[in-house]
């Protein structure tokens, strides 16, 4: 599982403060902790309160790159910030994200090509988030079609079915699992799949239990990647055990330690 650490996000008060005060130590330690816990990439977002989002994003990129050697996922809805950020990256990045709307795809696909970045594509459009699996598949097929016509390989696309909170759309969750599985059949090479895990438990109690249970089930449906909190130890341990059960890693008595030593599964 390709783990994208979610914690450097201005949505969190302490991160918003660190960004505002240019508290490098705080951000770098959050980056290091996530990488040590198994993140292969880190998501960076300035959050909604940022007053100068471009400067903030570039600052985040610089301080994080100075402390860890992983790919960065740039989480912004502003095209100019995305491009300025991509220019700044020292390793291939991840664009987070585009919707399935043609004009947005046509704006982001050239960026992905130009900067050798992967692209997270949400299966939603102006009409909103789909209510069922078929619509998700339809939008996914559209995304892949446009991507291929623009010369981006499906293997550089992370399709995100958009995880709905359990207290809002409980009846959709199994369809989302099925969509994760079926996305992989849409092209050859297959696209990758990703979820923003903590969405599922927005507003719910026992959030961590819900998160890790969904993640384990999604692993069974072939999920490739997740944006999550790698510092949630129980979550990471479930994930490690899940990879063993799917025969993706080789068992040994200290399998959790083995994962941590390998730094990835």
């Amino acid at each position, binding site marked *: 599982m390709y783990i994208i650490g979610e914690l450097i996000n201005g949505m969190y008060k302490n991160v918003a403060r660190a960004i505002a005060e240019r508290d490098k130590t705080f951000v770098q330690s959050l980056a290091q902790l996530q990488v040590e816990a198994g993140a292969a990439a880190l998501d960076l977002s300035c959050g909604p309160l940022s007053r100068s989002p471009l400067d903030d994003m570039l600052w985040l990129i610089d301080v994080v790159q100075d402390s860890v050697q992983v790919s960065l996922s740039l989480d912004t809805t502003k095209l100019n910030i995305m491009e300025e950020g991509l220019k700044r990256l020292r390793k291939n990045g991840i664009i987070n994200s585009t919707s399935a709307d043609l004009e947005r795809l046509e704006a982001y696909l050239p960026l992905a090509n130009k900067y050798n970045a992967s692209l997270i594509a949400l299966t939603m459009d102006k009409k909103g988030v789909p209510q069922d699996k078929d619509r998700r598949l339809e939008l996914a097929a559209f995304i892949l079609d446009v991507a291929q016509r623009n010369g981006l390989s499906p293997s550089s696309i992370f399709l995100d079915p958009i995880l709905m909170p359990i207290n809002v759309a409980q009846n959709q969750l199994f369809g989302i699992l099925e969509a994760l599985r079926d996305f992989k059949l849409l092209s050859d090479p297959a696209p990758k799949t990703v979820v923003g895990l903590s969405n599922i438990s927005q507003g719910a109690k026992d959030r961590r239990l819900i998160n890790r249970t969904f993640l384990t089930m999604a692993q069974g449906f072939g999920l490739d990647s997740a944006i999550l909190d790698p510092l949630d130890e129980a979550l990471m341990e479930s994930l490690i055990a899940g990879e063993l059960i799917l025969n993706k*890693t*080789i*068992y*040994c008595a*200290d399998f959790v330690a*083995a994962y941590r*030593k*390998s730094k*990835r599964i």
Partner: protein
Amino acid sequence: MAEELKYVEKWNSKINELKLGAAKADGGTRGKVFKVGNQASLPYLFKEGDIPFAPIIAAEVYDVPEDDWPQALTEDLKDVFRHPLDWAVKMVEEAGADLVCLKLQGIHPDLGGKSAKDAQGLAVALLKKLNTPMVVLGCGQADTDNEVLPLVSEATKGERLLFGDVVQENYKTLTAACIADGHNIIAESPIDVNIAKQLNILVSDLGMPQDRIIINPTIGALGYGIEYAYSIMERARNAALSGDRMLAMPFICFAGQEAWSAKEARVIEAEAPQWGNARQRGIMWEVVTAMAMLHAGADILTMRHPEAIRIVKAAIADLMRH
């Protein structure tokens, strides 16, 4: 051959590079040193990834002659069998082995009970005689090995040799000595990839750098489970090349020891005339066993018969030509 490769796999990880032998600049005295591992591909699939180093052959040399070896093997070694130093020189200079594998069988209480001093003396004398590094093995009895091998390790400190074997039940003493004295270590598991991985964790948890560990996966000779050994090695390599650092160690395979234990390599011609010349048969048993292990991913082979070593050495040169 490369043209036949229809599906090219690109891996995202590599096998560790293990350095065997320390030259003067690195604190040792070796004139010749070796590197093994560091492949980014399954064996000999040069189109898939880099294979920077050829496998090497360590010829087994015993401190005391082994009574149990068949004539097909001893006949060609009879001049040197009782003289480990001459034996070593013959294997490297005449047979073309890259280095020797010193088996300290004589320290076993039932097989001579030689002292630690004898063992140290022989190891040091061998290093003086040859400019290569070497592999050093104990007698297989845990208590004796734990007593003697650390002393041999100390006497050869800084030469970056390869000591073995440690097993899951007994790994701490020798590992600690090798860490302190700058040697590499052989981690042995009983044809079991799960235990191989576990032992690598245990050994590295003691503080042994991962690039100083080599896996002895335990093999079977031709006709005695060779396919099983192959499948274990293949599984470990696939995992390692996909990013499992705890299996990303090179392999050492004891091809000579296993082949010469096989009935087919041991029975004399008078007892099985239909099987043909015993010497040729034994040599070929060792060659075929060794070749299969090369294809499974062996980085170091230990072998016994000079003629088998010559044949396999030439075959390695062929395999590496691409």
